[in-house]
């Protein structure tokens, strides 16, 4: 029965993939939604069971590894089943939204899009529910593929196809580590089953365990767009917005966090690895927040925000607080999806021709519901009471201050910037001047209800999800007190960020353009993500390609193949020299023969 959670998106995928062209795009979309919805229902059911008693489902024997039989299966405990429910819920909502968003493309094989979405959901659920590392890896790569296909959905655009390539390759770098993490764990534990691993985690060598954890974390870094494998995530925004919302904000990128949380006992037993996790998370949070402050792309700002929030989650994990990380993941799924959907709504209103915040403006007049949704999302993201972000982020802030003042300051700074940049985007888009006037003739209008309803649903979730903190902590077996001082602090920090944005972008206290001009080096540095993207593209990728070509032209063609091909002229040349002996004149023949005989005689006599 529980298998149906997985099967329903899979069946939807297969049906759409095989018959999509025949049944049409609308039917495909409905199938996809249906698959998601069923999956959601089944996961709710499974959750209800899992909350009382964790259980696992064995699927089939997959692979014999010498003495060990690797069998695939599903594992339902509170963590996985709740996450599955959240994932399927958000996914279903976004699927519905996408019907409206993609409607103008119907008739152009849009069924592919729904096939990919279903595939994605299947793979994501595989990550969440698998009871062994290899199963996780299956889903891991599966979501990578779905993400690749979805980012490259508008593949005729160079931007999209490049972004998809980059996403897949960087993810593969992570997967490389992940795969070896799996391998290393196998030799540590003699098993790949999560339960076996948890059972034996205290008996193994700490150093090797740390190594395995780091390798596994490498996979998470790739998937979650953390430093240093981060550049693909902003570029992934080339995909359709529902994709950004679902994959690159709510679920897929969070898989890294989920995986670390899932394997938390391993990490806990190797504290050194947790330190690395915290460091990477913290750095990424700061880094992405900085980058977000100077970007103007509607979706990229939110994407950087995603990176930043994921960084915070990793920080929390690294600091030993699994519950708050996972809770933040959950609330983040709601409000970040909401933000993206709102952004998508804006883009949709401009017929997918607008990408930069300065091309919009003063949209609250035209799109009130979108404005409201965005506002809810932004407030949640900024961590303002009582939105869900407040509850989850507050836990992280508290943990950070508990561990060390420095971490706390870092988180606060990040929170401040988060509030600033998200409201900067909101104010520019929904307040301010109507920059779109000179380009767009018609006025933007509110999106159709098929898009609006999902936004509303998510808004509700973004508001109320935070109140489940206690319950969530309960099912994970952790209880955390709310620290009033910390809560006040973080709300103040958030409000301060909003205030700054308000002063600059609504009141016009400082002309932002002039400020950018004045701080140009800093601005550029931040916008270029400290030049990492350029470094990756030009130096690493470009260099790899360039040197590959150079080596191909030199070592391969000239040296190796050159030697091979040279054998023919060499043999022929030597033959041409020897050939001179056969000069055609009898006297010379006699001469050479006599000479040869002499040599033979010489050898005979003087050979000892």
């Amino acid at each position: 029965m529980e298998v149906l959670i997985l099967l329903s998106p899979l069946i939807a995928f297969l049906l759409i993939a095989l018959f999509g062209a025949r049944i049409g795009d609308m039917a495909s979309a409905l199938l996809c939604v249906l698959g998601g919805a069923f999956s959601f229902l089944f996961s709710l059911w499974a959750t209800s069971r899992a909350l009382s008693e964790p259980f696992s489902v064995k699927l089939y024997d997959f692979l014999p590894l010498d003495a060990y039989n690797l069998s695939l299966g599903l594992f339902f405990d509170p963590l996985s089943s709740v996450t599955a429910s959240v994932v399927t819920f958000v996914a279903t909502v976004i699927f519905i939204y996408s019907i409206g968003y993609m409607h103008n493309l119907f008739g152009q094989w849009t069924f592919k899009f729904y096939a990919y979405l279903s595939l994605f959901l299947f793979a994501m659920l595989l990550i969440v529910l698998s009871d062994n590392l290899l199963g996780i890896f299956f889903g891991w790569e599966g979501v990578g593929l779905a993400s690749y296909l979805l980012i490259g959905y508008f593949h005729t655009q160079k931007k999209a196809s490049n972004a998809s390539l980059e996403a897949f390759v960087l993810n593969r770098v992570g997967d490389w580590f992940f795969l070896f993490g799996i391998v290393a764990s196998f030799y540590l534990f003699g098993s790949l089953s999560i339960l076996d691993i948890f059972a034996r985690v205290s008996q193994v060598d700490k150093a090797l365990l740390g190594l395995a954890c780091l390798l596994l974390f490498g996979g998470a870094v790739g998937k979650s767009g953390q430093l240093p494998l981060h550049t693909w995530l902003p570029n992934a925004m080339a995909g359709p917005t529902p994709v950004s919302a679902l994959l690159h904000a709510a679920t897929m990128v969070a898989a890294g966090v989920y995986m670390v949380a899932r394997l938390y006992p391993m990490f806990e037993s190797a504290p050194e690895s947790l330190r690395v996790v915290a460091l990477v998370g913290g750095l990424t949070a700061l880094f992405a927040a900085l980058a977000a402050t100077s970007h103007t792309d509607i979706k990229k700002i939110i994407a950087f925000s995603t990176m930043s929030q994921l960084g915070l989650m990793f920080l929390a994990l690294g600091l030993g607080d699994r519950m708050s990380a996972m809770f933040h993941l959950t609330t983040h799924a709601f409000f970040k999806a909401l933000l993206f959907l709102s952004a998508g709504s804006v883009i949709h209103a401009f017929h997918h021709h607008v990408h930069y915040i300065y091309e919009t403006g003063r949209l609250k007049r035209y799109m009130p519901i979108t404005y409201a949704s965005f506002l809810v999302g932004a407030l949640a993201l900024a961590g303002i009471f009582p939105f869900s972000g407040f509850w989850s982020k507050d836990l992280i802030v508290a943990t950070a201050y508990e561990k060390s003042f420095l971490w706390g300051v870092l988180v606060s700074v990040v929170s401040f910037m988060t509030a600033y940049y998200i409201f900067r985007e909101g104010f520019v888009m929904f307040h301010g001047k109507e920059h779109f006037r000179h380009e767009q003739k018609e006025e933007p209008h509110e999106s159709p209800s098929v898009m609006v309803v999902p936004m509303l649903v998510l808004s509700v979730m973004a508001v109320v999800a935070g109140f489940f903190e206690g319950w969530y902590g309960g099912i994970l077996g952790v209880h955390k007190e709310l620290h009033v001082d910390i809560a006040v602090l973080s709300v103040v920090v958030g409000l301060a960020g909003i205030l700054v944005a308000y002063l600059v972008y609504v009141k016009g206290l400082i002309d932002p353009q002039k400020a950018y001009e004045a701080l140009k080096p800093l601005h550029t540095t931040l916008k270029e993500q400290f030049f990492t993207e350029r470094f990756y593209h030009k130096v690493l990728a470009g260099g790899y390609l360039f040197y590959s070509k150079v080596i191909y032209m030199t070592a391969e063609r000239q040296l190796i193949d050159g030697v091979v091909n040279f054998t023919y002229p060499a043999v022929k040349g030597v033959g041409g020299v020897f050939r001179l002996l056969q000069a055609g004149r009898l006297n010379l023949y006699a001469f050479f023969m006599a000479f040869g005989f002499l040599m033979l005689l010489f050898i005979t006599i003087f050979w000892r």
Partner: protein
Amino acid sequence: MENLLSLAIFLPLVGALFVGIVRRENFSKVLSLGISSVVFFIMLYLFLNFNWSAQGFQYVKRIDWIPSLGISYHVGVDGMAISLLLMTSLVFVVAFLWSLKVEDRSNLYFALFLALETACLGVFSALDFFLFYLFWEGMLIPMYFIIGLWGHDRKVYAANKFFVYTFFGSVFLLLGLASIVVYGYLITGKLSFDYTFHMGFSYPMMLQMVAFLLFGLGFAVKIPMWPVHTWLPDAHVEAPTAGSVVLAAVLLKMGTFGFVRYSLPLFPDASKYFIPLIFFLSLVAIIYTAMMAIAQTHIKRLIAYSSISHMGVVTLGTFAMDLNALNGAIYMMIAHGLSSAALFMSAGFIYDRVHSYHMDDLGGLARYVPKLAVFFMLSGLAGIGFPGLAGFVAEFLVFLGTYKNFPIWAFIAGVGVVLSAAYFLYMYKRVIFEEETLSEYRLEKWRHLKDLELHHTLSFILIIASAFVMGLYPYPFVKIIEQTSRYVLGG
């Protein structure tokens, strides 16, 4: 049962004779397809009846052939062989299916392919050195003519390079065979080419090393390993599609098969001694040829380099001296056979339609031939080791097994995972996705491109479905392969 194997081996040859005698195009096509299907079903039957828990060779048939030289007709299969035989017979069915539209001298074409099938099947089932070498070399002539007669522009160059190169390798192999046979004669007084006879010996180290190198050179050329690989891209680039399919899927496997069947069990000590060398070459193959692949603009050449890269994984796993790694290496042979066949079919199809292999001339094909785009993607994913397809299981097993004794080597080799994705997707992007480079003229012309025809689709489905089966339910396959790995590793 044991006669079935021989029947399957020689049926294609008989078919080739018939094709040569009757000389009717349709007859040739139908007969070839029919015979290869029959062979496939025989192999399937044998595969299904294979007992993976029993030791030793099965379906063994032994007849004294040349008693004075100790040569016998001795065939039989172990787990690896029967898997490879199944894959080979499948690939040949696909090759014939794919070639149904061949018009140019089709009788000769099909006759050569049928002869090639006999040689390929023979190599995998021979249990006698002489018989093995007979088939091993017997494949040279048909393949030479397939490349030379139906190839593209530089076919003569490619065919000659293929022939001379592989012949160069195989004479070394011949000397190696002669050495160990003579050694067997010297110590037992019995001249025998029988494989099972020689399995019982332990050779002195010196002989092991020499013979290992001789065998190894022969196999390395065929695999091909770096740096004796340069014949392969040229041969692939020039060969006709079905030729490339067979070349990549089956012929390359002969080398790795040879390593597993001959080098490892016969020269265990030398194999251990040469591990660093083989590993170094494998790593160079994996990384260097991946770089070569991404530097290409010719899709077939790229796929050819990717083949070399994957064979590097196979050699790595073969010599990791670990059960899982060896399982993975053998699994990789089959998986790569499927994926490379499908990739070459895709490339060949593109050429058939667009008449170019160059990425610069291609782009945006997803819009014009969507079915191909799907199958191309799937074959590529099978190639780069995407979970759920056969390649992943193989790579996983190889890395897992290699990591046990050689963690650093395995980890470095793992970079192939990244690089292979890079070159395949780079190609895919330029061929299937990106449209901005295309001229208006092309777009106009391509509007009416015909997508996959029925026989194309069928071929693809056969291959991809097998890849899925092997990727999703590897258990029985690995069990059967393990039957070989266990005795090879002496466990």
